[in-house]
């Protein structure tokens, strides 16, 4: 109904986990542990997957809510690996990028998901995720729907120009003009790729190389 909002896409998936054990440990617990041990921020596998704005993984053990005598009690018969993502572009392109850039992690995380043993290649993976997909009922984008590269370039420009404005107060008109022209060349303002922030970057960009070039 509303998986998209402009050029942004909200992917919601529930992937059932096999009810079983390995070395006396439940497969859902093994899966959870693997997810919890994924590296974070720029080292996360999602940082390698093109156009990922946000992504998350968690295990849905059961449904639960405030109980009372006047309501029924539901329990799930399977546990589910919940994978959701907010990204730019269309679903097939995104899932292809996921497989191409993080195949090893995907195989590791989804290893114990029901029917994942049938996934042998990129095409199988796309089909698999689509089987697990739920249609988003209402998707809200409070940010932008630009490509991630454009967003990261803009954030770099924001950081760099704010610094420029701060450090060039009190200059003469001629000094300011020369410095500004040099700044525009150095930030390569029409080049979306470089220099720019990188996905998941945890510290501000070092602007010193910019000053020295």
């Amino acid at each position, binding site marked *: *109904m509303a998986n998209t909002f402009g050029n*942004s896409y*909200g992917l*919601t998936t529930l*992937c*059932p986990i096999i009810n079983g054990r390995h070395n006396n440990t439940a497969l859902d617990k093994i899966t959870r542990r693997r997810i919890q041990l*994924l590296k974070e*921020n720029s080292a996360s596998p*999602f*940082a390698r997957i093109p156009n*990922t*704005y*946000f*992504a*998350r*993984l*968690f295990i849905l053990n059961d*449904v639960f*809510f*405030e109980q009372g005598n006047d*309501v029924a009690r539901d329990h*799930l*018969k399977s546990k*589910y690996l*919940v994978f*959701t993502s*907010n990204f730019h572009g269309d679903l097939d392109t995104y899932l292809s990028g996921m497989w191409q850039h993080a195949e090893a992690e995907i195989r590791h995380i989804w290893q114990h998901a*029901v029917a994942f043993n049938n996934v042998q290649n990129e095409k199988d993976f796309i089909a698999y995720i689509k089987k*697990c997909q*739920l*249609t*988003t*009922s*209402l*998707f*809200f*984008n*409070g*940010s*932008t729907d630009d490509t991630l590269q454009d*967003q*990261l370039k*803009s*954030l770099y420009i*924001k950081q760099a*120009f*704010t610094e420029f*404005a701060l450090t060039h107060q009190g200059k003469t008109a001629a000094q*300011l*003009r020369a410095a*500004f*022209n040099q700044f*525009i060349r150095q930030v390569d*303002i*029409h080049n979306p790729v470089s220099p720019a922030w990188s*996905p*998941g*970057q945890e*510290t*501000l960009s070092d602007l010193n190389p910019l000053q020295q070039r």
Partner: protein
Amino acid sequence: MSNVAGKAYGMNVLTPLRWWTALWQKLIFWVVVKTFPYFLKGLLTLSLIHYARWTIINRWSFPRLDKTQPKETLTYSYMLFESNFNGSWDQYIDSFSFAIPGGLDMFWRWNIKYPKSIPLHDFYHYIRFNQIECDHYYNAYPLASANDVKSAKRLTGNLRSFADSLTDNMTDEAFMDAYRQFLADNQHALGSMGDSPLMSTSHQLVQHHKQVNTAHEKQPEEEA
């Protein structure tokens, strides 16, 4: 493993609703989508959300991929709410409750045991009880808020236009005037970005352990 990734908090809330009211709820969402931005104006005003979504999971639509997988037999359908927002959990719930109480009630009114968004205490309890923690949460720009992303886009577009509008035969003084005008026009988009302020004692503890572990990893092998 955390609900926090830089300046963003990832929230998941799963709540039950009767299967026939789930269909009504879908209709409400459909109307919201069709009448946007009227109903979502409050959310835009909040300005602290990157992306949020509501997904109705009908009681018969939990994915079943193989005959060996037991079929779910549920009484209720479920609504999964997910949000990526800036600030703390408390700030978010407070903002929602105070800014768009009517909108919240419209989105959750059919959910079992939903107490309404006011008074706040019961609403707090309801969300907390039904929240599921993230096992892995990724944010492409941990140092930036949703407002930073939007203002960065405006600033970059304006800066490109400004740079392209400059000519060689312009005097230095004319450049200075234009530059000052540019700064005045774009002052709302200028501002420092960086680490998130600490939101809670647990957040503080996580940051502390990260620093300790990072320092430990940097030790030469013989010292470790």
